[in-house]
């Protein structure tokens, strides 16, 4: 009995450690972006409490930047909320994929893991799919998402308190961080399975095309993800799924 309990807890600790190591790139990418958000939100006239609360309750970078901009120029409440819905709707598609990957987990795990889904936490979690089948795998994903969430909240708060602490040129350079992380996640998968490159390139093409047609970024990413993903129906074999 105690043996079993020990194995149980050591597996959980092991998964938390692995989740932590896997989640570090998100922390690296989020902190400077969150600090910038905090600075801009403060300049837009939000209080420290409001700007931190937004990070706690919304936890979606791009839409928070947009929201702050719209608050700054005095856009109506309803308009801000509708724009947020459009911009974040892609998370519905990502969550559908992520929850299918985590099908074996109990609902009490699925709910918090889905609520903590962002572009970045989804990207890192979904690329590391083996843990979904492992014992205590939920701790792995829970740790990744917790790191992302805490980095985002702490960064926002720091930005609001400290103001512009990161030198301009450095913070501009850090704008590449999350893109580089996405690339760093995608390339190893492509090295394993070349067809994945076709899926990703197809999605890029659709996204770019939709932008050319005048679609908003939010819908263009949704279209790129859904239609790009459809190529996987033909390209991927069942064992990859």
């Amino acid at each position, binding site marked *: 009995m105690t043996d079993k309990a020990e194995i149980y807890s050591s597996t959980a600790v092991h998964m938390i450690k692995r989740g932590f190591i896997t989640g570090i790139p998100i922390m*690296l990418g989020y902190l400077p972006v969150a600090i910038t958000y905090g600075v801009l939100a403060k300049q837009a006239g939000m209080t420290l409490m409001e700007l931190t609360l937004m990070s706690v309750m919304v936890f979606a970078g791009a839409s928070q930047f947009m929201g702050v901009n719209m608050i700054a120029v005095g856009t109506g409440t309803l308009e*801000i909320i509708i724009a947020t819905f459009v911009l974040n709707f892609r998370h519905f598609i990502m969550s559908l994929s992520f929850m299918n990957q985590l099908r074996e987990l109990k609902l009490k795990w699925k709910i918090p893991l889905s609520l903590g889904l962002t*572009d970045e936490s989804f990207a890192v979690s979904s690329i590391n799919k083996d843990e979904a089948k492992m014992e205590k795998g939920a701790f792995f994903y829970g740790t990744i998402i917790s790191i992302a969430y805490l980095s985002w909240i702490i960064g926002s708060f720091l930005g609001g308190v400290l103001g512009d602490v990161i030198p301009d040129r450095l913070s501009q*350079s850090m704008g590449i961080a999350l893109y*580089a992380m996405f690339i*760093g996640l*995608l390339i190893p998968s492509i090295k394993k399975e070349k067809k994945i490159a076709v899926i*990703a390139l197809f*999605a890029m093409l659709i996204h770019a095309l939709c932008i050319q047609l005048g679609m908003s*970024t939010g819908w263009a990413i949704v279209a790129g993800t859904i239609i790009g993903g459809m190529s996987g129906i033909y390209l991927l074999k069942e064992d990859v799924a």
Partner: protein
Amino acid sequence: MIILIIIGMSLVTMIPRVIPAFVIEKMQFRPWVNRWLSAIPYAALGALIFPGILSVNPDKSQIGLLGGIVAVILAYIGLNVVLVVIGAIITVYFLSL
């Protein structure tokens, strides 16, 4: 008034995120749907990388592109994601000098 905006933004973000958690519980998908859903991470990564990466420096789109190419090379030779990120940041930093 801002608190109302925050609550509204939270609801329209969190509800679409959480609905799949309940949907998946009740549904078994056909194999082609599973293949589609398992391709979503790669499609999402593609759509998130490009063309967004061109706007890293809105005035000079080649800076983001070059940073991206360096990231591809570093990732291709098998470096850890953290090093890929740092390498890309350094590249963009020097290109912006």
